């Protein structure tokens, strides 16, 4: 799908060992597959089914989403920062697309 833009809020820097909060939002209709269109037929399901967050290649947090997640899925979680590096976020769509974004963090 086009025009899907992930947005992520990560602090620019943190002290070593600090636990930071990461907020993520991606615009996506999260079509549940239960709704009917104007023609009376079911609109096929299309949702983000998985979200993952890695820090320097190591898994931090991941999440499997079901149709019961609201449109424009918002996910907030925490991460412990021990070194400077890069957070990599990816969202997996039902249609096989992967939306990715990266954020760098420095140590104070």
């Amino acid at each position, binding site marked *: 799908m086009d025009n899907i833009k992930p947005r992520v809020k990560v602090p620019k820097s943190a002290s070593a060992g600090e*636990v*930071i909060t990461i907020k993520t939002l991606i615009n996506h209709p999260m079509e*549940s597959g*239960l*709704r*009917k269109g104007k023609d009376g037929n079911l609109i096929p399901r299309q949702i983000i089914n998985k979200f993952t967050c890695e*820090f320097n290649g*190591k*898994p*931090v*947090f*991941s*999440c*499997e*989403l*079901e*149709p*019961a*997640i*609201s*449109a424009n*899925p*918002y*996910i*907030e*979680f*925490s*991460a*412990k920062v021990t070194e400077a590096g890069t957070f990599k976020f990816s969202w997996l769509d039902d249609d096989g697309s992967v939306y990715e974004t990266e954020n760098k963090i420095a140590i104070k």
Partner: protein
Amino acid sequence: MNLTRRQMLCASVGAAAAGVFGFSLSASATPEATAESIKNFAGGKEPAMGGDLTLNTPEIAENGNTVPVEVSVASPMTDDDYVESVVIYAEGNPNPDVAVFHFTPMSGVAEAKTRMRLAKTQNVVAVAKTNKGKVFMDKKEVKVTIGGCGG
């Protein structure tokens, strides 16, 4: 409309039957289906109520399309003692599964927030599993004014 008493009776019985039948056909998860999923998730164990897991939802959700939900588990989150996953179920949705969060020791704290859809007033259940296989759950009722599952 000139209905005889007999016709009236037939019609009302039919309507009542349709109502019952329609209800039994409507796609809705039941607490039993949720209990089944919890059992599978917990590996056959009976999750202990309460404990270290807190599920935070609003008491009344005006709009079932976006209901904020928050889970947090008190855990040291070290390499040998951490929360592996937390799963959220909505008992009254067409499909009880909502989300599964997977944590690692790198998460720092086992906390996550998201927004979910609720079809009607129902119980929301969260179940947490630690790497040692300990399972516990929390349950909250959410009153929904406008349901959020389309249809």
